[in-house]
């Protein structure tokens, strides 16, 4: 996976002469989960700034709240208190429809268990975010462009030979590549990765990390990655350690 073509992602070209502005900011975020009658505090006042074009990794032990933080950043969940800002705009209290649009357009998400739809081929899985936003007619009209784009993305993650395969017929690494292509299809501003290598062997995990690094370098894609593995975390520009629901160290 050394000779990558640059990924073509449509988004505003940024001016890198100026210091990178804050893209995503969490301010004093609290989150509790209720299990039966017991309330478990997961996040207890987290402050976090993610700069544009940054590759940030959040490290912490199981139960430290790192996945929860990532979900809050990606509007999959709402904080109990505190706020989340995207480019100076508060996003945590937006209506659900806005959240849906943000998740579809602004955030790309990849997961430990890949989370591909088993009934769809790799290509269809990649096209899924487009299918969700575009109406039936619009999708039909743009189908050729869409498919070309998805094919190109699958090509750049090295999965051009598996377009018509269902997730069941793919290996773990191949599924994660398809998931990355799916996260990129709408041209997101931020890529949120939840243990992207957690279920892969070292070599395959390394390949996935290589893809993420390349995306970050060549396209200045902001990436927030959650992992429990320090070796993986170190490959990012910056590492944030989360312990007991609070940011412990920033390196």
């Amino acid at each position, binding site marked *: 996976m050394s000779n990558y073509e640059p990924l073509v992602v449509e988004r505003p070209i940024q001016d890198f002469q100026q210091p990178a502005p804050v893209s995503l900011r969490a301010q004093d975020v609290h989150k509790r989960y209720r299990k039966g009658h017991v309330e478990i505090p997961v996040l207890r006042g987290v402050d976090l700034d993610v700069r544009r074009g940054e590759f940030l990794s959040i490290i912490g032990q199981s139960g430290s709240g790192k996945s*929860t933080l990532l*979900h809050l950043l*990606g509007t*999959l*969940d709402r904080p109990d208190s505190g706020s989340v800002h995207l480019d100076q705009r508060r996003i945590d209290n937006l209506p*659900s*429809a806005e959240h*849906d*649009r*943000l*998740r*579809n*357009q602004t955030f790309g*998400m990849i*997961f430990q*268990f890949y*989370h*591909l*739809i*088993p*009934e*769809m081929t790799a290509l*269809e899985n990649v096209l*899924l*975010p487009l*299918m*969700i*936003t*575009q*109406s*039936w007619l*619009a*999708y039909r009209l743009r189908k050729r462009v869409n498919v070309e784009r998805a094919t190109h993305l699958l090509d750049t993650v090295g999965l051009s030979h598996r377009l018509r395969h269902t997730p069941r017929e793919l290996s773990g690494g191949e599924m994660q590549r398809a998931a990355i292509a*799916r996260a990129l299809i709408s041209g997101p501003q931020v890529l949120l990765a939840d243990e992207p290598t957690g279920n892969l062997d070292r070599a395959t995990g390394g390949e996935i990390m290589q893809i993420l690094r390349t995306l970050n370098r060549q396209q200045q894609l902001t990436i927030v990655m959650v992992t429990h593995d320090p070796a993986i975390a170190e490959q990012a520009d910056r590492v944030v350690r989360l312990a007991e629901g609070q940011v412990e160290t920033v390196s």
Partner: protein
Amino acid sequence: MYKFLLCWRYLRTRYIALASIISVTLGVATMIVVNSVMAGFAHEMQSRLHGILSDLVFESHSLEGFADPQWHMQQIRKVAGESIAGMTPVVTVPAMLSFQYGGNWVTRPVQLIGIDEKTQAEAGEFAQYLLHPANHQDMKFDLRESGYAEGAEHAPQNPRKELRTAGWVHRRKSMVRQRNYEAEARAIDQKDKPADKQPAADPFAGDPFAATAKNDQNVFDPLKEQHTGLVMGIALASYHDRQGADRFLLLPGDDVKVTFPTSGTPPRAIDDIFTVVDFYECKMSEYDASFVFVPLSKLQELRGMIDPANGTRYATSIQIRLRPGVDANQVRDRLRMAFPPELFAISTWRDKQGALLAAVQMETAILNVLLFLIIAVAGFGILAIFFMIVVEKTRDIGILKSLGASGRGIMGIFLGYGLSLGIVGSGAGLTIGLAFVIYINEIADLLGQVTGHPVFDPSIYYFYRIPTIIDPLTVGGIICGALAIAVAASVLPARRAARLQPVEALRYE
């Protein structure tokens, strides 16, 4: 867009869900079959009844009838002349019909109807149900030489061969046989009693002209002459054997005795000999087994329904045929206003057979309720299986939500899935049901062959073939009902899916 794709994929990959709609399929198919057959029965029966019974019947309460039917018909015309197409006077009396079969006298209770062969055709379709084709055009109480049809709708596998020789051909043959038999019996008689050897010498023996004249005037020659004609219901003269073929006890050309009450109080029983000239077959066994028609004037004469003082004739009822499109109930009500109800009963053919028609409608309604319950039960099956599928698809729902799918979109997937299951189920039901209805007689025949006895016995029912009517409106209603149930059953699981928290759903492994 993804909704359609996912619906389609779910439809093609989840066979368990397809199993849940088999009951929808069966329900829809049975409902279509039942409704078509019942509608066919009701329609056939109505048209039969309507053909047999005239639109309106104006009848006297007594067996003596009312005087001068012509005057009454004029009065009726005065009241509702513009809606009346034709009228005919009729005398109806209960009677006994006796005929000889296998050396025994067979007696049957019948409904004896005196009809006017000239005007009867104006009031109803009576002539269409006679077996001889010539009687369809020009009904006469005369025995035909031969050529009695086997009945247009008659089951072809059991031809009525006997009818081919019916008529004068049959009469001559059986009368000759009868004569030979009688001659033989007389010969044996005479051998036993040799004393009375020679019959008394004919006083006119010397005059050949006188002998022929006497023959022409007085002696009835059954080989060349007939008694008054009589048309009897075919079921009175025949029965079905075990193979379903018709066996005839007597044929057109045979003589029968009819016993009936005279007019007057108390009625006395009188009888007369008639010659069967044709059979009446309307395929309503109730009528085929009881109706006997004789000429009106002869019946009036025999029953004493002609006033000896002035020759006024009597009738017991008047059959009225209305012009097409006229509301029979409205005419009936007008006539009821005009004639005293203590003397005359005026009813439409629907009133006369109301109970029968209402029974068919009632049966259809009850069956529909029961069958729709089957589909409703199928709805609960869909509900249960959909909950299972939502649980199974929890993770996928989370994925879709994390990719920006809205709650309504997720709900749409499952509602659409329910709808497409309904479409598949009721579509299959529609195909099966329609195929069954179209080939119902073939299926009945096949079942009859397999099980060894006929499924559809025409002697029980009114028809030789199972009548069906496919009403597009009913079929459409059934399909819509099934689809509504399928969608309604998927609402709850779909709502549950829509309300799943994406984080919860994603954590679900």
